[in-house]
């Protein structure tokens, strides 16, 4: 069994025979596509959009695109963490939405200070992650189903918070028997998180704060997964849970941690989103789920990683972000966008899975 795979060339194969058999030559091309296909696709996409819009490649525009993609990236990193431990968290979109409603309604309806509102919201996110972990680890509900259940719970809780109302300054308090206007507001400081810029000079508008936040999270998550003991344990649990357990790894603690981080990141994304739009829109987190899942699986194909990885996920999220932004700037009508997105998604996923599998099969 192991015989053939044993003979597969390792990546640092320097002594190729002078005449390559036909099978080997094809696999060199395939290998290139697997490693760089995703990056080439992004480059092509950018070239295409820059021919459509001459301002596309301007630095300010690029940062706006990055800002638009940053919320998605944060959610996607959470999904990546859950996928790394061979789990799956589909509740992230709903948790993002819940976070939007919870943070804004705390400020507007209950007059909570914005800093405290953020802390409470983050705490709620961690609790959601804990509950997910409880469902999956203790009750042994399959991860997809458990987090699907949580998707509805979070969505329902989101609606119950304000009795289905969106949150905005001066709204009527849904919990008061009389029609009383609320007095709280979404403060300027809070709005800075999603709308602010840092380091503006002359023509340059500065770096958007969400982008800085996203980069901080991405770099931390990358270091966490690649260079720490816990990150190593994440991959071990995801690679073979039983082998990890029999190596003395606290498998359940690792999985619990992954679900908590996933929910926490979705909550952070929700806070950024709430600050960005400045109101508590209902179900505003929903679209992030599928985009984040797509970004995570795109990431498998980046540099031939063949496994969940933060760098790939960030690239994948940028890809989705650039695509969406480009389509909007080209005035593609909104009702076409989902279809185009689906088409590109399938094409890229086909590349990730079909080619990677083929290449592995030898």
């Amino acid at each position: 069994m192991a015989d053939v795979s044993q003979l597969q060339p390792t990546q640092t194969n320097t002594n190729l025979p002078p005449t390559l058999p036909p099978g080997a030559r094809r696999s060199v091309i395939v290998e290139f596509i697997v490693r760089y296909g995703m990056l080439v696709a992004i480059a092509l996409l950018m070239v295409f959009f820059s021919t459509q819009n001459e301002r596309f490649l301007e630095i300010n525009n690029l940062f706006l695109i990055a800002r638009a993609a940053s919320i998605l990236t944060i959610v996607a990193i959470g999904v990546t963490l859950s996928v790394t431990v061979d789990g799956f968290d589909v509740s992230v979109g709903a948790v993002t939405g819940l976070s939007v409603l919870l943070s804004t309604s705390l400020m507007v309806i209950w007059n909570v200070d914005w800093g405290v509102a953020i802390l409470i919201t983050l705490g709620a996110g961690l609790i959601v992650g804990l509950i997910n972990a409880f469902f999956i680890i203790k009750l042994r509900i399959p991860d997809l189903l458990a987090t699907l259940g949580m998707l509805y719970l979070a969505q329902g809780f989101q609606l119950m918070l304000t009795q289905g109302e969106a949150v905005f300054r001066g709204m009527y308090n849904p919990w008061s028997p009389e029609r009383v206007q609320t007095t709280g507001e979404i403060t300027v400081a809070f709005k800075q998180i999603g709308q602010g810029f840092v380091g503006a000079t002359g023509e340059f508008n500065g770096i958007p704060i969400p982008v800085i936040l996203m980069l901080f999270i991405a770099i931390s998550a990358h270091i966490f997964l690649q260079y720490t003991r816990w990150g190593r344990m994440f991959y071990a649990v995801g690679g073979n849970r039983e082998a990890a357990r029999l190596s003395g790894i606290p498998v359940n603690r690792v999985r619990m941690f992954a679900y908590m981080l996933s929910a926490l990141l979705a909550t952070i994304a929700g806070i950024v989103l709430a600050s960005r739009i400045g109101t508590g829109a209902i179900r505003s987190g929903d679209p992030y789920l599928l985009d984040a899942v797509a970004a995570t699986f795109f990431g498998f194909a980046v540099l031939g990683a063949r496994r969940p990885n933060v760098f790939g996920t960030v690239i994948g999220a940028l890809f989705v972000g650039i695509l969406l932004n480009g389509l909007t700037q080209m005035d593609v009508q909104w009702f076409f966008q989902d279809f185009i997105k689906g088409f590109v998604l399938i094409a890229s996923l086909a590349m990730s899975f079909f080619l990677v599998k083929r290449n592995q099969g030898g």
Partner: protein
Amino acid sequence: MHRSPPHAKVVRRQLNITPIVYRYQGNLLQSTLQAVGLGKRFPGVVALDDVTITLQPGHVLALVGANGAGKSTLIKILTGYYDHYDGTIEIDGRHVALHDPSAARRAGIQAVYQEVDTVLIPYLTVSENLLLGQYAHALVSWRALHAQAQAELARVGLQLDGHRRVEDLVLHEKQMLVIARAVSQDVRYLIFDEPTTSLSLHEVERLFDIIRTLKAQGVGIVYISHRLMEVAAIADDIMVLRNGRKVAHFPVADFDVGRISEAMLGTAITNVYPPKREQAPGEVILKVEHLTRARKLHGVSFSARQGEIVGVAGLVGAGKTELLRALFGADPVDHGKIYLDGKMVKITSPQRAVTHGIFLIPEERRAQGVLVDEKMRKNISLPFLGQFTWAFDLLHRRREDIHATATVEMLAVTPNDPEVEVRNLSGGNQQKVVIGKWLAGNARVMLFDEATQGIDVKAKQDVYRIVRDLAQKAAVIYASSDIDEVIGVADRIIVMHDGRIVAELDSAQFDRNLILEYATGSRTPMIQTVEDTKHAEKN
């Protein structure tokens, strides 16, 4: 190519009769498969080089060779796994191209692999699995299906209820089912790849009966096994491969273990087992009292000393694996006490066991022992990652590299580059990685479960040496269903039968037949566990 004539299929479909009639025709063709100059190269490696092989009807050809010798490559070519290979294959003088699995199947070539679970559908019944893909009509007549399945099973002399679900079968029954299915699909050449690794002696006998039946029906058989005694028992011809080349081919009448191992390895192996312990063993490290787990373990008590290898002998299913897993905290126990260096310890999880210095080399290497997609380095450092970190849990890469390199050197893993992914290693080298990952720890008790299963003689010799070295500091519990191996490795043997320890033997008492009699339950147990039958009744 040799298929049933086209009209036969039409007739078969119209009448909805079982296709047995036509299949006998196929077998009676008495066709010889001749493969000349078979070769397969991968970039940088020649996996198989100019091998000529002849398969005759009613003839068993045994294929032996160390891991990496090219056996699997040869089998994969014959079963149409590769879309490209060198050499030509002819059946009865007619050229056939085996570039995809269906072509091989049409040519009547099939293989029965060790991992039968991958080719069966667990929640379907025996009959459904047996006739998978061969239903005559869109609508399934269950009665006809089961009747046909029974007929097929009877052909290979297999008694199995067609209504049972495959997930409820034991391993050898599944294997028999896979054989029956191959036979039901016009098989003319059947390849067995390590079929007996997980079978008990009795089951091996039954498998051989079936092979003999197939032989009598004119099926040409290729039999791959590391167990040379089995090869001697079943083969007509023996072919030895080494480094992708055919190095020997002779009739079974000339069978000689020394000659075969020499051909396999290129050098003579004088003594597989390392010398036994000379001094008396040290202090008692591990003491187990009345370890009990419902239906699996019944009042198991024994102890092990420092510097001592305690062999655990017993048939497949005797409770050896269950005992080791219980000691490692991998499965819960109902009651019983474990003492380590005189102190009672509660082992409730593998994590706990590891902190106490109890390490397990599990039965299923790939599924339980290693992370196949990771590099050797990451496997080796996994259990004791804490030793390779500095501030904030950050990994200290250089320290990890040094440890991995040293481990790989010490265990003579080939290739000796710790950056190679474990999937690219042969079975024997993978097993060394499994052992290697415990070397950073302070071992008190090492538990080995079928540690040499499916690895070649050279690697086995290395493993035995490592086991002996480890026993210097720790107590070693070495479980295996290969009685000769336990005798060769252990200083003292405990024999298990049906979840109980039935005998404990000193090296002076080591005797193959004696152990076998205890293991099969045909001799009255030397050790009675009266107290524990009480416990067992309570449960």
